[in-house]
């Protein structure tokens, strides 16, 4: 049982970080479907810098690439007012492709000194609490939420809609980058093409299931981590085929989060903002 709880937290951590990152952008009204790609690119950057310099610097590099990824998405979604879904998918594809292309020389290379998973898991939990505080207890949080709910009103009150959205995407990108760095510097610890293996998409789904609430994202990510581990722990001891077991984490997380409260998206989610329209 202890083992299962430990796995819940350690495997839940990258999901938590990535969903917190997506959540932040979405509370400001920008859908982030680029998570998988940003995570992949950040994982590569983190790993490369860890080899050249050191794992802590690698962690910073991962966060940095995440921030850039968020700003990149912002350029299309905020400045150019492109369709956010299309822009996000493009970022996801671009990040995956670029990491595969640039990462060839890092495959099959071991990382001598991985970062401790436990410390990063604790950091992720603190970040979730911090994000909750940021959203509900700070001025920036108030602006962020109002921009996500009613950008026109926020604009009238003198809040820079574009500025807040860029800020949220950059900060969120940093968290997504941290998720990628966790994968390649602590969880694996090595790099291969496609190593995010859909975790970014799970994180995107978790944001919706968690009803855009950081603390519910903690619950969702850990629950997913727990069930993901249990599918293997229980396989063979119950007369259930392994394929059915594999679906269990997804189904149960949806069920639990669906039952624990109604999800309401930020009203302006997915809508580009243009002054005077």
């Amino acid at each position, binding site marked *: 049982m202890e083992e299962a709880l430990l*796995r819940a937290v350690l*495997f839940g951590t990258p999901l938590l970080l990535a969903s917190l990152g997506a959540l932040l952008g979405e509370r400001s009204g920008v859908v982030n479907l680029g998570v998988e790609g940003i995570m992949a690119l950040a994982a590569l950057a983190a790993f490369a810098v860890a080899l050249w310099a050191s794992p802590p610097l690698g962690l910073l590099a991962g966060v940095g690439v995440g921030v850039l990824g968020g700003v990149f998405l912002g350029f299309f979604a905020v400045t150019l007012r492109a369709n956010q879904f299309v822009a996000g998918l493009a970022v996801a594809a671009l990040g995956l492709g670029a990491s595969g292309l640039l990462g060839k020389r890092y*495959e099959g290379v071991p990382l001598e000194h991985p970062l401790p998973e436990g410390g990063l898991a604790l950091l992720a939990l603190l970040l979730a609490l911090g994000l909750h505080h940021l959203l509900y207890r700070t001025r920036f949080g108030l602006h962020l939420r109002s921009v996500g709910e009613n950008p026109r009103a926020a604009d009238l009150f003198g809040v820079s809609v574009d500025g807040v959205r860029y800020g949220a995407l950059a900060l969120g990108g940093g968290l997504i980058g941290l998720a990628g760095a966790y994968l390649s510097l602590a969880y*694996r610890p090595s790099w*291969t093409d*496609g*190593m995010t293996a859909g975790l970014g998409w799970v994180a995107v789904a978790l944001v919706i299931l968690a009803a855009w609430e950081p603390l519910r994202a903690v619950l969702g990510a850990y629950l997913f981590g727990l069930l993901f*581990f249990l599918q*293997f722990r229980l396989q*063979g001891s119950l007369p259930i085929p392994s394929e059915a077991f594999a679906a269990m984490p997804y189904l149960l997380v949806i069920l639990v989060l669906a039952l624990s409260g109604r999800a309401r998206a930020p009203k302006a989610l997915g809508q580009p903002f243009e002054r005077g329209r």
Partner: protein
Amino acid sequence: MRRWVPFLLAALGLALAQGEKLKACFIYVGPVGDAGWTYAHDLGRKKAEAALPWLETRYVESVPEAQALPVIERFVREGCKVIFATSFGYGEAVLEAAKKYPDVLFAHATGVRRAPNVATYMADFYQVYYLNGLAAGALSRTGKVGYVAAYPIPEVKRHINAFALGVRAVNPKAQVLVRWINAWYDPAKAREATEALLAQGADVFAFTEDSPTVIQTAARKGAYAFGHYTPMLKFAPDHVVSGQIVHWEVIYTDFLKKVKEGVYTAKNLENVDYFWLLKQGAVEMGADYGVPINPKHVPLLQKARMSVGGRQVAVYDRILALLKDMSGPNPSFDPFTGPIRDRKGVVRIPAGRKATLQELLTLEWAAPGVVGDWPGEPR
């Protein structure tokens, strides 16, 4: 005008020289760069190209099974004479393309269906798995050996069974705990499946997944592991004991040479099936190239004893002796030699005979000692 003649001749010569090259093209199911299946095929392609000066190769990576036919058609347009399809799932597309392009030679890895211009080939690990099983049986203190398995298909089942037969030959009470991840490549599943097995007491690991994740995870808890597919010693130098290593270039070079010499044509491949083993050098037992057993673990394996025909021998000696035998021109030993019963007690291979190739290729039963879900297990 005359000034151009040498250039024209040179160009013509170049064109002719080009024309003499045999163009072989490869379709890969995954990205080349990983440490697994596709990487190994690409290594084989490169080595074949280096060994055969008249060979020209090309490849397309990460081709989903549904996209195989368009890629094959592109290859044909580009003048590929030989096309290697390196995934089981390409089977349908290969047979369809083979009908459409009767002059092109196809070879389908892990395939089971052939045609006049379609051969099948496989570098198989079952002998190596048995030898690694012997080492695993000797190294396990808990008597629980973990196996993180990809898909429940005959190939993977054959390997798990060979491994389990080896484990049991040393420790008749040992269990091989199997967990299916239903993926060829998924580091997160490989990690959590390994964690689950560690939590259940497994202290030695083997696996079928295209990343070093199982090894890295096992090493964190001090457990032993066997590398898979490519040398993985570097990922855990103190914990990797040995492993299965493939040499696709051995098959590629042989096949292409025979095409070049005219032995293989687009009309006589119906019966060409490579199922190459240690004897042909298509596979190797090792923690790294040329390192059958990690020197760090040799003393332990020398100390461990097992009973062979009523005689006590060192496990290390047994492994080396069998490795030598099966690598030689006339192997006398085969892991699937009867009598072998499955874990339910049904006789699968009668006493005194070896499993036939057909039996090996369609194997569905589970060996004694295998514990866990086993989809498709015969009643």
